């Protein structure tokens, strides 16, 4: 696997609490992405980054924020988690936007 690590791998939390997911890469790739995967919806882009401090919104960005202060780390924050954000979250990295992406093994997040 490409050097990409997601943490935590599993998390259960309550509605209204803040949650931060971390993606760490050792490949020095410029692009980093956060997706969520839900039954019936496939994989949907939340936010992505094209460099340190450079981020853009994806298809389903409402309720999520991201930060990238270092090349290797991309954080996804749910400021006040809701049950609709229960999902499996995947981080991906890419050398260029039009090149293949390499995925982490996901974080399974349950919000009760």
């Amino acid at each position, binding site marked *: 696997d490409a050097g990409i690590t997601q943490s935590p791998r599993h998390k259960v939390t309550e509605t209204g609490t803040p949650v931060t997911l971390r993606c760490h890469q050792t490949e020095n790739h410029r692009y980093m*992405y956060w997706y969520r995967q839900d039954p019936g919806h496939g994989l949907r882009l939340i936010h992505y980054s094209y460099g340190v401090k450079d981020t853009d919104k994806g298809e389903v960005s409402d309720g999520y924020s991201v930060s990238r202060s270092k090349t290797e780390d991309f954080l996804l924050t749910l400021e006040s988690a809701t049950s609709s954000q229960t999902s499996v979250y995947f981080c991906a990295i890419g050398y260029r936007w039009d090149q293949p992406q390499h995925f982490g093994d996901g974080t399974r997040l349950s919000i009760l």
Partner: protein
Amino acid sequence: SQQGEEDPQALSIQEGENATMNCSYKTSINNLQWYRQNSGRGLVHLILIRSNEREKHSGRLRVTLDTSKKSSSLLITASRAADTASYFCATGSLQGGSEKLVFGKGTKLTVNP
């Protein structure tokens, strides 16, 4: 909004048979990619085909792209039980100045021993 749509949603075949999955999309693209996802794991990139290419091969995988029909197909020849997974197409394009890779909902392939 979903760009690529895979067909069929599910496919069950016997080991040794060929598996064909199709992907249709709606707008112009820069490239189209196919990924595999084993249960409980992240997606793994299989093949990328650019809009000016018509066919690519990688081992037992063959991908075609028809930009006039806005469709692509993934053929897995001589399938094995280990090919059991979900397969996703993803279209890469520049939309409104933003670079996007949009995934379809996937085809679930089961290869029976």
